[in-house]
């Protein structure tokens, strides 16, 4: 089963929930899909065993064959090519590696090389009993295109495990790429007008993608009732409320997962999985 942990926005405690949940349940795998800012390993401190560069195709123009007809540039949906009198320029930061240009070039002047955009790292987090399987994508700085890296990281999801995917913030392409194919989505929010605003956007996304979901309110005692009322009104299951907790905040700032020092919290996160299973049965 794949459980994605998302929030309309960063900073709501999404990574805290995802890492603690992964540490609290048996047979788990954690995949950090927030490849622009992968933070999960600050807490999990996995032993990385494999690293694999991830590349996307990048067109290469053979100037001996090119007639500078301009067809490739016209047909590229992303304006990643410019054809000059004696040169075709490729803008790698705009290219999606879609293959249209090589397909349409009448002279077969375009071949494809590879551009490395980041790395997927895999390993384990040693645990009493069975180890937690770990995977994260890390996007190269200055590289704007994260979806191919997210897609690659997701290919390592092991079907026999409960996979916890830590999603990137926002509601656009990287989040959609992460959520596509998830069985359940946990939406983490805060009880403030900001939290509600972002939650409504995220709910719009998961509803449109037809993914079953539930809400977790973090720092539940620090704001107003608007999120709770919204969930009741919209018939959204409220699966967990985590009050503002000095110990947790301090453990977080030092990079210590909360559940490693608190067996009660571990039970609570275990219960969360039970609640998710229940949601999926109805």
């Amino acid at each position, binding site marked *: 089963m794949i459980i994605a942990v998302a929030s309309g926005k960063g900073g709501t405690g999404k990574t805290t929930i995802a890492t603690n949940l992964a540490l609290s349940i048996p047979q788990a795998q954690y995949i950090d899909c927030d490849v622009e800012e992968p933070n999960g390993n600050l807490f999990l401190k996995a032993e990385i065993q494999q690293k694999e560069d991830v590349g996307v195709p990048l067109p290469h123009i053979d100037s001996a064959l090119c007639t500078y007809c301009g067809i490739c540039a016209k047909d590229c949906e992303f304006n990643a090519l410019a054809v000059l009198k004696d040169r075709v320029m490729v803008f790698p930061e705009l290219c999606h590696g879609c293959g*249209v240009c090589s397909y349409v070039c009448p002279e077969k002047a375009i071949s494809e090389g590879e551009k490395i955009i980041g790395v997927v790292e895999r390993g384990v987090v040693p645990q009493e009993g069975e180890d937690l399987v770990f995977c994260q994508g890390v996007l190269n*700085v200055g590289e704007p295109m994260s979806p191919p890296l997210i897609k690659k990281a997701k290919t390592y999801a092991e079907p026999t495990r409960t996979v916890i995917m830590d999603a*990137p913030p*926002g509601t*656009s392409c990287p989040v959609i790429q992460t959520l596509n194919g998830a069985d359940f989505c946990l939406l983490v929010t805060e009880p403030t007008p900001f939290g509600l605003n972002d939650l409504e956007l995220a709910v719009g996304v998961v509803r*449109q993608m037809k993914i079953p979901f539930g809400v977790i309110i973090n720092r539940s005692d620090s704001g107003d009732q608007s999120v709770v009322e919204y969930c009741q009104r919209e018939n959204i299951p409220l699966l967990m409320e985590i009050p503002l907790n000095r110990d947790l905040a301090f453990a977080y700032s030092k990079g210590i997962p909360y559940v490693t020092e608190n067996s009660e919290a571990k039970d609570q996160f275990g219960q969360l999985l039970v609640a998710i299973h229940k949601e999926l049965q109805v």
Partner: protein
Amino acid sequence: MIKELTIISGKGGTGKTTITAAFASLCENKIMTDCDVDAADLHLILQPEVLRQESFIGGRAPVMDKSICTECGTCQEVCRFNGIDLDPDKGYTINSFACDNCALCAFACPEEAISMVDSVNGNWFISKTPYGKMVHAKLGIAEDNSGKLVTLVRQQAKKLAEDEGLSLIVNDGPPGIGCPVTAAITGTSLVLVVTEPTLSGIHDMERVVDLCRHFQIPVQVCINKYSINLVNTQKIREYCAHLGIAIVGELPFEPLVNKALVARQNVIDFECGAVTRVVRKMWQEVEKQMMA
């Protein structure tokens, strides 16, 4: 010349919008923008009244004409993004969540059953607020092209500033280091990075600072909630000192800030003690740097 300040954080939830909203109240003759088009929330505090609304055509998307399709499967074969599903009942269909809108299927379909049509990916607005005009946007649900929309918002803000003879644009930037952030900072006069003294806060700050240096944009740093971890705050100070980056403000953790948010007010209008004082001083520093 019009100066442009972009406020970013690398990570959401560090108080970036709190600071942007406070600046809105402190600076004069400016246009505000919300470049966080995925999850805009500056409007929650500035409460804009929309003067003009336009749709945002971010690109084109494939549409399949099932009456011509012969189910040959070519589109699925060529697509590199798993954008074509094969449904036992409906045959080949476009999966808009996976599709990258590249048009390869439209070129490859032997029956010309697929065509590319303009798609409205969201809206953008010019609004009136108690603190001056604001340009903002709303990306449609599950739409991409947020980088393009950010660029559009900044262009419109610039036009508006020129038309009204204003000298400053303040951008509330998006989180992360991806395409929307790149679109929000390129060519701006100054970037203010808001960070907090947590491990992830530091890590993300380092990444956005790297990004700004990559584009050679001047950077200043503000540490929010510095009092929650003094050891990490010291680390941020050392990191900034090492790179010669000025820390223009250190704000203590202050529960009143949350109260201000819940009341939908900025921390200048809603008295938040030391935070209010530091933010006022910080604006002076930022202004000095920008006008230098």
